[in-house]
């Protein structure tokens, strides 16, 4: 049967609509900690987790720096973000390291995950699942195969306990606490997240995934993901997020640090669909060694205000980065996203394909930064960012910054902005396809180069999410 709006192709999340995502379980555990931040809270968090001293020191240094650092001087207005009104830490269960099996997870938490389709997904495609519920990892499982090969896939807190030297070697080195204000806050308050280490020469074919969930009112999320792909290794990591709708602002200031070793490769896929009142101020950055390759494939659908610029540092010779992304800004949303690439080694190359959509007054902004260092001989970079503005109310901005300090670089940047081509829509309608569906088909065609790079089930989710956004009348 051909997939259509009434009968979408079966996928993991096909039975869901926005209502599912917006469901929340009332939880009593939020009463344990109040709102706001303080140095005392930072110490309590560290003590509660039983962290080594160097981590507490890092948190304190970060906290102090947070006060010194100013808000970003560019991008959307963050003045409505009330940093004192957010709860920075809570525990839903006292057990660390997750549960050994699905059966052991508490019922109310299980309900939430079941509605989101985690168990089916886990059975079907995933190698291991790390899920975060209110800043604490509840459920975690690693398939025996990966454990045998030495793949470490744990929640960040547990990784700090079990592999402190490995964590210390890499933690907040790619994105230091001084990078910007929200990284300082992150350094102080971080909790949970994923630690993934793939040893030398190991190639993990099945994608590894972690799923976050923000639930209670005004939650701040500061998960820290640290991915290390050692020399000659290969992996595919999928990050997907969802949070229910709330009145007061929720803040997401997570951090993803990635190291790709010599001759290694990582594909990092993410579908971010945060609630419409969230501030998504994530920082994602990768540093590449010789002959390393990274592929960022992402979709940004939700959140109220997003500032997200995945960055690739091509330090080693012949390193390569691919940034493929979609951003959809619907009514009341500002998607300020882009890609940053720094060419440092010789013969490095990068390709950025960004497709953005804006509808119902949404604002989509592409903010790119491409820099060729003096040492980056023979760098090649190709950037294409196209924007489709779906109605007269919406807007699109493209602000790429290109700098070159090496005369052997070849850089090309192109962008096209417009609306749905009336003739194309008319053509499809003349073949019996109703207008809304015709428009959806063309939009899908527009984003297809990105979507087809996602694993099948996620491609379906992406298409469904876009459809939902297209159908969404003013919020």
């Amino acid at each position: 049967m051909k997939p259509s709006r009434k009968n979408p192709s079966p996928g993991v999340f096909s039975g869901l609509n926005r209502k599912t995502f917006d469901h929340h379980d009332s939880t009593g555990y939020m009463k344990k900690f109040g709102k706001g931040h303080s140095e005392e809270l930072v110490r309590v968090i560290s003590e509660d987790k039983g962290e080594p001293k160097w981590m507490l020191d890092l948190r304190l240094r970060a906290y102090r720096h947070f006060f010194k650092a100013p808000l970003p001087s560019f991008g959307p207005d963050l003045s409505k973000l009330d940093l004192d009104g957010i709860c920075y830490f809570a525990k839903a269960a006292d057990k660390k390291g997750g549960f050994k099996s699905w059966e052991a997870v508490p019922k109310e938490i299980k309900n939430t995950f079941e509605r989101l389709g985690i168990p089916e997904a886990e059975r079907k495609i995933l190698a291991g699942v790390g899920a975060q519920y209110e800043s604490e990892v509840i459920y975690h499982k690693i398939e025996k195969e990966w454990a045998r090969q030495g793949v470490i896939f744990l929640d960040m807190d547990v990784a700090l306990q079990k592999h402190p030297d490995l964590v210390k070697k890499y933690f907040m080195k790619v994105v230091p606490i001084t990078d910007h204000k929200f990284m300082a806050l992150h350094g102080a308050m971080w909790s949970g997240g994923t630690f993934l280490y793939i040893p030398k020469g190991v190639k993990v074919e099945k994608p590894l995934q972690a799923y976050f969930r923000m639930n209670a009112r005004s939650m701040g999320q500061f998960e820290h993901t640290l991915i290390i792909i050692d020399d000659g290794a290969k992996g595919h990591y999928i990050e997907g997020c969802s949070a229910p709708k709330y009145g007061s602002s929720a803040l997401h200031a997570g951090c993803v640090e990635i190291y790709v070793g010599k001759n290694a490769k990582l594909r990092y896929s993410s579908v971010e669909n945060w609630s419409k009142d969230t501030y998504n101020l994530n920082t994602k950055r990768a540093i590449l060694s010789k002959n390393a390759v990274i592929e960022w494939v992402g979709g940004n659908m939700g959140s109220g205000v997003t500032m997200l610029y995945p960055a690739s540092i091509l330090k080693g010779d012949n390193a390569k980065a691919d940034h493929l992304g979609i951003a959809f800004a619907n009514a009341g949303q500002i998607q300020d996203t882009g890609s940053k690439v720094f060419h440092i080694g010789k013969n490095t190359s990068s390709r950025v394909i960004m497709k953005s959509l804006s509808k119902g007054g949404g604002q989509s902004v592409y903010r790119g930064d491409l820099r060729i260092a003096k040492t980056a001989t023979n760098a090649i970079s190709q950037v294409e960012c196209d924007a489709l503005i779906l109605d007269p109310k919406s807007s699109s901005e493209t602000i790429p910054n290109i700098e070159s300090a090496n005369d052997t670089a070849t850089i090309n940047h192109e962008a096209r902005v417009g609306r749905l081509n009336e003739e194309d829509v008319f053509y499809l309608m003349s073949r019996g396809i109703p207008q809304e569906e015709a428009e959806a088909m063309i939009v899908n065609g527009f984003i297809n180069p990105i979507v087809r790079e996602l694993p099948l089930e996620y491609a379906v989710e992406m298409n469904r999410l876009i459809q939902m956004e297209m159908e969404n009348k003013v919020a």
Partner: protein
Amino acid sequence: MPIPFDILAPETRGITLKVTKGGYTLTLAANRTFEGPILIKFRPTDKNLNISLSVTIGKNAKATIVEEWPSDVRPATINYDVRIAANEKSDLRWITIQNVAKTSIMAEKRKTTIGNKAEVNIYSFDFGAKRLESHCEQSIGAEAECNLTSVARTQGTQHFDIICDESFTGKSGRGEIRCKGVAQDTSHLKFGGLLTIEKTAGGTQAYLKQETLNLSSKAKVSATPALNIKTNDVKAGHGASIRNLSPEELFYLASRGINEKMGKKMLTEAFLKEVLNELADLPDVQKRVTSFL
């Protein structure tokens, strides 16, 4: 104070120059076609310049104005503010050839307002000044057209920061911004630009392009072409490229006995000269520009 420039035209009827408190105003009468280029030539001087010029092109008027800054213009600092109003249905071609002394520091602001159904074509050739900060803004009315071509070449330790903005406020406007630059030695060349299409400017077609040749391992080049589009009934785009001369092209020339040095010179000149083809009716301008290459 003597006027810092001379105005030369084959016929002066319809051209009025006034000295006001704030600066100078130049008016071209409405409903006239001005034959031959009107030349505004800046006089040789060592004194610092602070000039404000306001130009009005009358309704339905048609003219070509060539603004020249020769190398004997040698002040330590030059501040230049020029406002051009091209009234409804006028047709203006404005060409600037800037080759001031390489010891001068020049800051200029150029604002052009293009009235409904008017057409303006601007060509800017920048070779001189030690430091140049240039900000050109064009504001385009309904059914009007404005094309800006900025050609710049930096040598030695020159620093050029050239910003070209264009904004569309009326319906069905058209415009293209084309920036072509060559950076040599240890110079810095920066092209910035913002193309804005307002909510009221449905039917606009606009494009912004920045192309730079970075010929030296010690030169620094940057391009920031930005788009701010606030309505969807548009066709807009931008492109930027930074590259060196193509080794394949150099090989082709070498295969005909043209050595590398000569080949580089030919290709660099070719890159900048492509624009001159459009000014075939102004052979003097073509000659002047070519002489600076």
